[in-house]
């Protein structure tokens, strides 16, 4: 089975900031945490000799570090889609470009994360599936057997778990229940240096940089730091006093009937 991992290179959680042009600073990037759960599940399939994994990332040059990390834990090769025309691209352009890249690849399964730690949109996998006309299965908790061109998946819906059969190829998003991602070994890191990473620009994808649908469709109009606005009252002391203080506080704000 050929698996394409959709991975976003994101700033470290807690260190996100805007650069001088008002865009998210992408000078240093690592794999998005939510993408790594699906990566781990794919690697287990690869361990069993059932899958080959290609990492597909769109982003500026530093995003290659995110790809390299996944190559170090066992992915076979990587593709970085990068083009000056894509700087600051929006969700619409991102899903258009990723869909165009996937059209050039042969795959059975695309695995993505539920959302990203920097943008927190959680809509790109669904947009990519829609553009490619592929089935979408979100919040997958385990991968089951494949037969008759279909894969069995366990997923968590909003109200409980489901077992589904999806025709291949399909787009799925992983969940944390797939398990923690593994750490790279020194040998893996060494091996990753020689694994192939292709870089594709818009020309390679047959896309026109002047296409208005690739221009940013959303923009940041204003941004301001959120100050710590909480009153931050502290209470300690005997449990009875603490409980009474909480009740008084809740009552004063209308939460205790």
């Amino acid at each position, binding site marked *: 089975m050929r698996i394409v991992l959709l991975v976003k290179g994101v700033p470290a959680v807690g260190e996100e900031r805007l650069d001088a042009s008002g865009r998210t600073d992408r000078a240093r990037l690592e794999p998005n945490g939510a993408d790594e759960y699906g990566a781990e599940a794919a690697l287990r399939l690869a361990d069993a000799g059932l899958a080959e994994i290609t990492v597909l990332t769109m982003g500026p040059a530093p995003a290659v570090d995110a790809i390299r990390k996944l190559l170090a834990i066992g992915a076979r090769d990587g593709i970085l889609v990068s083009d000056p025309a894509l700087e600051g691209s929006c969700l619409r352009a991102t899903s258009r470009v990723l869909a165009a890249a996937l059209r050039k690849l042969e795959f059975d399964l695309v695995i993505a994360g539920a959302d990203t730690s920097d943008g927190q949109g959680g809509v790109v996998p669904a947009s990519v599936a829609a553009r490619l006309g592929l089935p979408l299965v979100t919040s997958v908790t385990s991968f089951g057997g494949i037969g008759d061109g279909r894969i069995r998946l366990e997923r968590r819906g909003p109200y409980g778990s489901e077992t589904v*059969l999806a025709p291949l190829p399909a787009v799925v998003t992983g969940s944390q229940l797939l398990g923690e991602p593994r750490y790279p070994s020194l040998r893996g890191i060494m091996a990753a240096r020689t694994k192939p990473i292709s870089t594709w620009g818009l020309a390679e994808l047959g896309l026109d940089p002047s296409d208005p649908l690739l221009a940013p469709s959303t923009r940041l109009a204003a941004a301001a730091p959120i100050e710590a606005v909480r009153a931050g009252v502290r209470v300690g002391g005997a449990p009875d006093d603490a409980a009474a203080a909480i009740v008084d506080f809740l009552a004063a704000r209308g939460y205790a009937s």
Partner: protein
Amino acid sequence: MSAEIWAVVDIAGGRPSPQSLDLAGIAAGLAADAGLTAVAIVGQAADEAALTALARACARVTVLETGDRDPTPVARAHALATLAAEGTPAAILVSATGPGRELAGTLAGLADLPVLVNAEAVAWADGGIETTSSVFGGRLRSTSRADGPPVVLVQPGTRAPAAPAATAGSVTVRVVQVAAPGIDVLERSTAQGSPAVEEAATVVCAGRGAGGPDGVAAIEELADALGGVLAASRAAVDAGWLPYECQIGQTGKRANPQLYVGVGVSGAAAHASGMRTAKTIVAINRDPDAPMAELADLYVVGDLFEIVPRLTARLRERAAVTSSQS
């Protein structure tokens, strides 16, 4: 033809979700400000009463019939894309829940629309939609705009503006053929634990400090006494004390309640991103220096096993007195 503001309504058990009624109200408020028409779009089987309630908020209610009583978010998005291609929505509002993101992403991909995510407030300004959201783990408040009519993911818990005058909206039914790529559901089981963490007005969250099922049971009693929903930090889910459905934070749900009570929750960045927009935050924690201390309006340092049962008892006592007086 005048443009419209659409609210995509979620129906469960025939009724609109509480968040959907707010979404309809938000659409009505925007429409009033913009001089446009608010339309509630219903894509799942709804009761007569539900349609009447929506018609009080929005000038029009459109029922999309696809031949499926409970279509998937992807199928609903296909039906909406058909409608969007014929109509003139100036904005399409969708609840930012898991299924809502699926629906919004699919719709935006099919119709090539911009997407504005995680709006905590939506306004009409300078002839277009303007959203406010908190980004980067709640460190930055951003205002965003779209070029062209956007799909807007509205954070659950975002309330409608003060109710505009009730309308007597018209209800029309539209039959749409949907050819969404299908998946077969072989089995479906309802999880224990609450599904409503994202929409709850009061959330009581158990963290690592709960220590085990006994601690969680005490916290559940507290949630019950407050009329709230029980939630969990990732540590409590990883430990197997509560199901994933309850999890708040980066890899779980994003709660936006009026009141959040964290018990034994440290409040690390990943958790904070799922609760820091709560209007009031109360925390009980043994550690005086946990990150939660910075987030909370009231931070109680102490042993939760001592405090929580006493707190629950006091709240119940108070409720009993109040109800005997009324």
